[in-house]
């Protein structure tokens, strides 16, 4: 853990001089050796931190504070992808160097660090942010300073920017197909919507309600929001017992999430009596909730650690080799892993590190090695991806029980759902 956040190795000034002298000599004497590496002046016309052998990118997550619980996985996955890209020769012949900044779970700090990365460090791309609040805080800076942000979390949609690539699902991708699955496979007609009280659950539940009522002709028998950090759900559970929904549709987050599932179990609401479908429980959250409190409930994500394909097996093996056999990989961790790969592909397609050219080259980029399976970037900078339903197991893993047959088109501004 600590080594991850240590600074880059320092060279003494004299050694540095020697190194640059030597490399200059090498470059001058052996141009043929670098034939495949395009000249820096050509691939970088806007003054980014791109050198002949190195390109600098930024990583902006919360390594400290409340959100460190969630963001640690993303930090690890992005670092893994960058290491792998470097081991395979880097991007346009240049090794990726990372500047890590800590947003410390504080949105103004995110904005300040984003500005530092773009204005002082001139990084070619930034992998970062987790909560919508932090993304909203840095978005104006990325648009003004013309930076590139790769954002990993599934989120509420209603946003699109030339300067952001969204590698997680937007709300409709996560919600609509899973509701249709519940209706078709589980004959669900009535739903009880529960969420923490902030923008993502509220927007998600709004979309869910429209879909249930207008498109499925089903019934929403309750809709409840609890303040972030709420730890007492007994009254809510009694209301659910009165309403007797076919499905509890839940988007509770953070410490509340743990309290919610522990108290559900204690109130006798278990998977054999009640179906529950959640948008906010990945393998990461299951660590804290405990598999025995979740077993049999369903989660709607695009990725589960247990996915059975060759890409994923390689990814899981590499991740556990680097971060220990006990580490788990959640949906967002996988989405964060895609960021550096998408950036690399876009840079190579554009033949340039310039942000405008990279942004223009981004739509249509395909990631064939994605652990979740093949994904493609849409014109709107979101990903075409499959939706999946996982059933929680007692060991905290999920068994994939359903998968959308096609890639689902990202639609951050869904008509008829607002």
């Amino acid at each position, binding site marked *: 853990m600590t080594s991850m956040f240590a600074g880059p190795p320092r060279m003494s000034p004299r050694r540095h001089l020697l190194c640059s002298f030597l490399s200059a000599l090498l470059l001058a004497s052996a141009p043929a050796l670098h034939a495949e590496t395009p000249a820096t002046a050509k691939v970088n016309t806007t003054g980014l931190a791109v050198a002949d052998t190195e390109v600098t990118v930024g990583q902006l997550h919360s390594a400290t504070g409340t959100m460190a619980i969630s963001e640690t996985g993303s930090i690890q996955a992005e670092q893994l992808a960058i290491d792998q890209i470097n081991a395979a020769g880097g991007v346009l012949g240049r090794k990726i160097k990372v500047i890590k900044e800590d947003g410390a779970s504080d949105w103004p700090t995110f904005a300040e660090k984003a500005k530092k990365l773009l204005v002082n460090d001139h990084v070619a791309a930034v992998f970062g942010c987790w909560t919508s609040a932090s993304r909203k805080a840095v978005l104006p800076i990325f648009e003004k300073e013309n930076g590139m942000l790769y954002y990993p979390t599934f989120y509420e949609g209603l946003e699109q920017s030339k300067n952001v690539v969204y590698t997680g699902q937007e709300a409709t991708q996560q919600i609509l197909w899973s509701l249709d699955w519940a209706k078709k496979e589980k004959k669900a007609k009535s739903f009880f919507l529960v969420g923490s009280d902030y923008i993502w659950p509220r927007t998600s539940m709004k979309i869910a309600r429209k879909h249930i009522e207008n498109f499925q002709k089903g019934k929403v028998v309750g809709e409840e929001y609890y303040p972030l*950090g709420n730890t007492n759900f*007994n*009254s*809510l559970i009694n209301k659910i017992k009165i309403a007797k929904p076919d499905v509890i549709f839940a988007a509770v987050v953070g410490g509340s999430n743990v309290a919610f599932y522990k*108290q559900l179990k204690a109130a006798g609401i278990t998977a054999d009596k009640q179906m529950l479908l959640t948008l906010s429980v990945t393998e990461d959250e299951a*660590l804290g909730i405990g598999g025995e409190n979740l077993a049999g409930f369903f989660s709607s994500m695009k990725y589960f650690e247990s996915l059975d394909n060759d890409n994923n097996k390689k990814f899981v093996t590499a991740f556990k080799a680097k971060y220990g056999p006990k580490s788990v990989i959640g949906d967002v961790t996988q989405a964060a892993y895609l960021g550096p790969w998408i950036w690399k592909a876009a840079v190579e397609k554009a033949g340039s590190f310039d942000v405008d050219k990279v942004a223009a080259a981004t739509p249509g980029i395909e990631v064939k090695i994605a652990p979740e399976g093949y994904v493609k970037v849409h014109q709107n900078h979101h990903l075409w991806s499959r939706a999946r339903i996982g059933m929680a197991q007692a060991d905290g893993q999920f068994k994939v029980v359903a998968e959308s047959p096609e890639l689902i088109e990202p639609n951050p501004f869904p008509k008829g759902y607002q």
Partner: protein
Amino acid sequence: MSPSELFNIVAMQGFAGLSLFSVLLLMGLGLAIIFGQMGVINMAHGEFMTIGAYTIYLCSHLAETFSPGLVPYYFPLAILLAFVAAFAFGWLAEWLLIRHLYKRPLDTLLATWGLSLGMQQGFRSTFGPKEVSPTLPDWLLGSWSPTDGLDIPINGLFVMVITLAVCALVFLAMFRSRWGLRVRATVANRAMANATGIDTRRTDRLTYAIGCGIAGIAGAAFTTIGSTGPTSGSLYIVDAFLVVTFGGAASLLGTIASAFSIAQVQSISEFFLTGSMAKVLTLSMILVILMMRPQGLFASKVRR
């Protein structure tokens, strides 16, 4: 809805209120002792609860690794250990930090807040930033259902029993022991207590450590209903302060009355309104009553 269903819901909702009452009381008790008896505003209260929670996690981990047969029985011992761990940390914190600030009560607020941030990062560096889940014994999971459709949460019952026990012990200690006598004398008149030969500094340190130890027990008990992570303690701190302030800072009876009324208002309004609105209603009620009675529900009779 049939009459039996109605009865079940009323019973379960009544239990929900009582269960919230015991949670609030347990989290407020340690704080009430420290704040009420010493005037120290302990912002690190939540983190002492987290120490208790992590003690449970460590014990469950040890039990699982070394003798899985012990898993059903480790919990009571782990709760005692949680008290000991939080007590020891509290003792240390008082000696290193708090005792230098007794004459500057507002600075204790800042110092203990700093302490809480430091402790949070300490947990993060020691146990990792992700939440953990202690393996709870099977008898603590699930519900007790005397009739069909009536489910009484076992973890709620368990927290209730712990709260009763801790309350009884605190009252015994406060009103039947030499320590309690010294504490009450110190609160009533520090200079005079000193003059009669009571070592008030030692009394303060013990009081602070006991308050922290009780927070440790609370944190340990709450692993059955809530999360265990570096910032879990911060989920409880606001509610704990509400209970203590509303009850009247120096009164244990006030803490009980306040926990009871807040719990009832909250759980009843949660049932009829939405979760966020219930919170608004509860907080407004507290605000209005505190405007009329700034000293809280029960004010202690102290000569000033």
